[in-house]
């Protein structure tokens, strides 16, 4: 018996969410009185997972998996789960993890609970707390199957050190060509910038900014903070910003440490999508904007005056605290 966690990497380096799910797996293993085993695909520095309590890493090196392929990755994880006799399989909430987790769940006939925000409430029955209704509520979900798949929400459990020594073993999965009938032919991705999925800080603009030509200050503010940029639904519907930036109920969820909403009134769908963010700041001319009720800090004022000042002051702050 074991707990198996899929630790994602990019260009060989573990992603931040990999460290969080490794920490989570360690906690689940402790509750079950077993060990946490990680599976990594084409990652280097596998030993570092020991810092987060992982006692064994199954290291998969396979050129066929150099580009993400949901079926190929899911099949590899499934084979590892069988080899390790895994009782619980843990994944992150990245787009790729949410693509492959249902495939793992189906092939192992394992119940799957996504968007889990805390360590299991109990292990018998196995019960986890997860967000439902697009963050407008939580459910306690009991997984009844022998094998369980748990998807951990980004930035919910946190990264927790629990130092041990991770033994790294090579693991070969047998993958037939039929696993690769869906092929990636082009990846169009922002390089070197934080993404909404894993940024600590997200700066988001709404219709209050009046037009796409005014996004320069949003991008500058994001640059100063090392933040990702996002927008409200009307802004993406109007074509001012790409759809990938739309956050909210039908767009992307945000679970950053800091979310700064500029010129966004705070429709219920938007507030749901960003509610998992830990600290929210709102800048809006309208003191009656619903977002003020959901925010931690607010400035009633004109974004075109406040934001440039904020950029200048933050630059000074960063210079002093560098």
């Amino acid at each position: 018996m074991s707990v198996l966690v899929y630790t994602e990497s990019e260009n060989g380096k573990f992603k931040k969410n990999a460290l969080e799910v490794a920490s989570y797996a360690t906690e689940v293993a402790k509750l079950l009185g077993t060990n946490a085993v990680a599976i990594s695909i084409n990652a280097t520095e596998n030993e570092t997972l020991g810092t987060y309590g992982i006692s064994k890493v199954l290291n998969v090196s396979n050129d066929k998996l150099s580009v993400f392929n949901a079926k190929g990755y899911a099949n590899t994880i499934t084979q590892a789960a069988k080899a390790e006799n895994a009782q619980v399989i843990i994944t992150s909430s990245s787009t790729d993890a949410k693509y492959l987790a249902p495939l793992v769940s189906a092939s192992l006939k394992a119940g799957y609970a996504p968007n889990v925000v805390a360590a299991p409430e109990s292990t018998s029955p196995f019960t986890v707390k997860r967000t439902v209704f697009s963050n407008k509520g939580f459910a306690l979900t009991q997984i009844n199957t022998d094998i369980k798949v748990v998807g951990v929400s980004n930035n919910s459990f946190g990264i927790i050190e629990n130092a041990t020594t991770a033994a790294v073993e090579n693991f070969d999965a047998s993958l037939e060509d039929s696993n690769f009938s869906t092929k990636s032919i082009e990846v169009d991705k922002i390089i070197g910038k934080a993404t909404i999925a894993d940024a600590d800080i997200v700066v988001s603009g709404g219709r209050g900014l009046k037009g796409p030509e005014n996004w320069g200050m949003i991008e500058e503010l994001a640059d100063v903070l090392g933040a990702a940029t996002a927008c409200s639904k009307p802004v993406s519907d109007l074509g001012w910003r790409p759809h990938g930036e739309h956050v909210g109920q039908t767009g992307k969820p945000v679970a950053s440490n800091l979310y700064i909403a500029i010129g966004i009134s705070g429709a219920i769908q938007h507030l749901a999508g960003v509610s998992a963010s830990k600290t929210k700041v709102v800048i809006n001319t309208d003191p009656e904007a619903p977002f003020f009720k959901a925010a931690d800090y607010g400035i009633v004022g004109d974004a075109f005056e406040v934001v440039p000042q904020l950029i200048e002051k933050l630059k000074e702050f960063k210079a002093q605290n560098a």
Partner: protein
Amino acid sequence: MKILVCISNVPDTTSKINFIDGDTKFDTNGVQFVINPNDEFGLTRAMWFKEKQGATVHVVSVGGPTIEPTIRKSLAIGADEAIRINAEPTDGFFVAQQLAEVVKNGDYNLIIAGRESIDYNGGMVPGILASLLDMNFVNTCISLEIDGENATAQREIDGGKETLTTSLPLVIGGQKGLVQESDLKIPNMRGIMMARQKKLTVVEPVDALNTTQDTKFEKPAAKGAVKLIDASNVDELISLLHNEAKVI
């Protein structure tokens, strides 16, 4: 091309969410139900395949008789026929098993579901369905073209998008982008009248694994009052974010 669009009947995005019966059930009182937005983008793309490429489009949903208005709406938008699987959807795994049976019996080669429903946010129906049927699968799909048996799809990834080639039979987990918001169709009177005449078959569920159950619900803790900072004093905001919230 024979398309099956999987529809979930969900609370409108503006709904206030409350729980009843000792927080064990979602309170449907006063809630307006709609086609799950992620499914509606897929349904609208299916209509495009019907108009431009002569596809046949059926819709399917799992639920009791109360979901029929939502099914009729998808017929009014233009789907040819509908199937209702007469069972309470307990979780995504259960729903996928029911849908798999309909796909096997109906000879569909393109199945379009939403990437997730906005109520229970399982996000597992299209993936489990594809796995049970051993079909190709593209999730978070934002563009789809079909040429004969070949498909080109784009999917959203963290920080960008990816273009994929694949082939029918294919399962799609769709979302906004598959069509634009402005392409969504509001059924007209003629569509609504015609929908009444269209075939809606009710089928009984098959035996299925019950893998999970939601035993209790809760609402997020109430938020404390906002701290307002004067617009001329952004230094104070920076200081609060640094010293109090500790986020910068």
